[in-house]
């Protein structure tokens, strides 16, 4: 079985190229469009990495961060990346990084995201 990644992104047009690119790069990729679906998948599967958008469908614009906080508890070995399209030039990056291993700003070249994913997964391996 290959290395499995969960992509949590409510915008299908963003998720699609990311999924295709990661699959071509040799990963098994699951997609979830919201927090509830992501939690279902997390309950039954062990992921090497979860990549989540900060703002998913929900009421308070931080569902992605809440999800990654949950991943930290239920699956401490899973690496996490938070994606954000926020305008703020100086977001509270340190607060984000308490829950996520890495903060990536949209848009980024897919090869750049891939490099970061490879690095995080390699670091997690014993």
């Amino acid at each position: 079985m290959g290395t499995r990644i969960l992509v949590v992104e409510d915008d299908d047009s963003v998720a699609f190229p990311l999924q295709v690119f990661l699959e071509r790069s040799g990963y098994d990729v699951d997609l979830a469009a919201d927090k509830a679906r992501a939690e279902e998948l997390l309950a039954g599967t062990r992921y090497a990495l979860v990549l989540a958008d900060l703002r998913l469908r929900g009421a308070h614009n931080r569902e992605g961060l809440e999800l990654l906080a949950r991943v930290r508890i239920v699956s401490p070995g899973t690496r996490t990346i938070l994606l954000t399209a926020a305008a703020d030039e100086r977001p509270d990056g340190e607060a984000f990084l308490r829950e996520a291993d890495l903060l990536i700003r949209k848009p980024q070249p897919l090869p750049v995201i891939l490099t970061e994913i490879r690095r995080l997964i390699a670091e997690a391996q014993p």
Partner: protein
Amino acid sequence: VTAARSERDRLAGRVLDRLPAGVLAIDDAGRIAYTNRSARELLDNDAAATRCEGQPIGDWFRCDPPLPLASRDLEQPERRFTTTLRTVDDRTVGLGLSVTSLPGDAAIERLLIFREIPDTNAQMVEAILGSSSGALASLAGEFIHRLRNPLTAIRGLADLLALESAPDSPTSEYAARLLGAADRIERFIRDFARLSGIEPPRREHISVRELARIAIASIRDRDQRAGQIVVQEENLDRTLHCDREQFSQALSELLLNALESGSPAAEVSVRAALGSATPPGRTSRIGIEVADRGTGVAAADIRRTFEPFYSTKAERSGLGLSIAYGYVHHHGGSLELTRREGGGTLARIDLAEVAS
């Protein structure tokens, strides 16, 4: 008759002194023969108790473009134009000006009537900055967020297209062009985010040397010639009390502007300049100057260069200099662009200095 005439002159003088426009007469020897109150307020240096009347016009009315004072200009009865005046206390002021020729009258050969043009750059940037914490900023934030998602999709699809296409194929070129356009949109969005979300400065003590180092390092990937920029050693360890990130960004915008002006990179220089004419009792000021030998800015356009979206370069967002202006303005400093003698532009940030 003499008494009546003298009363009429006094009345005329009072009327002229109440005009909001400056009125100035020049005699046939090129000296200032008369000024009304508005003109004196702009030209006289009260601090030094100097008066312009009786002095050569060129010493007091230093403007760019210059006044049409050649004898051939006398043939034209009236000229109207805009100009930038540098006052004796070293401020620059935009003026709308009319020059009327009165040949044959030795006492008043030319009559100047002028009004100050409000600084639209400052007004516009102030309007944007003033709303940073308000509705416009949050609207802009939401707009940027919503724009970035489809842009991420476009960029991702272009990455895939590039990956799928054979090298040197038309598809690979289309993908490259698509990526280039997406990058341009992102640069624009990023600059817009910076301008609409300028935060109050987080001040710290930092030397001009350190600011120049950060600014040059940050533009190395955007212009490889950044390494050739000349940093002049004098006064580099002078210290400012400013936001490291905002000030180095302001400086890098000025440097990028200089590099893109057509100037040889080795002719782009940064220097720390001490305020030469600090009146006693006032905080000393320090200038950071970026000079180039590029094509320069037309005199008529120089006051527009900080306006948001004003750019002569297609690939720039037209926001870089507005951002620089906004950052400096937020620190209580000033930023000015002037044309250099011999060609090129001098950008000068002026800020209060703190003790080193």
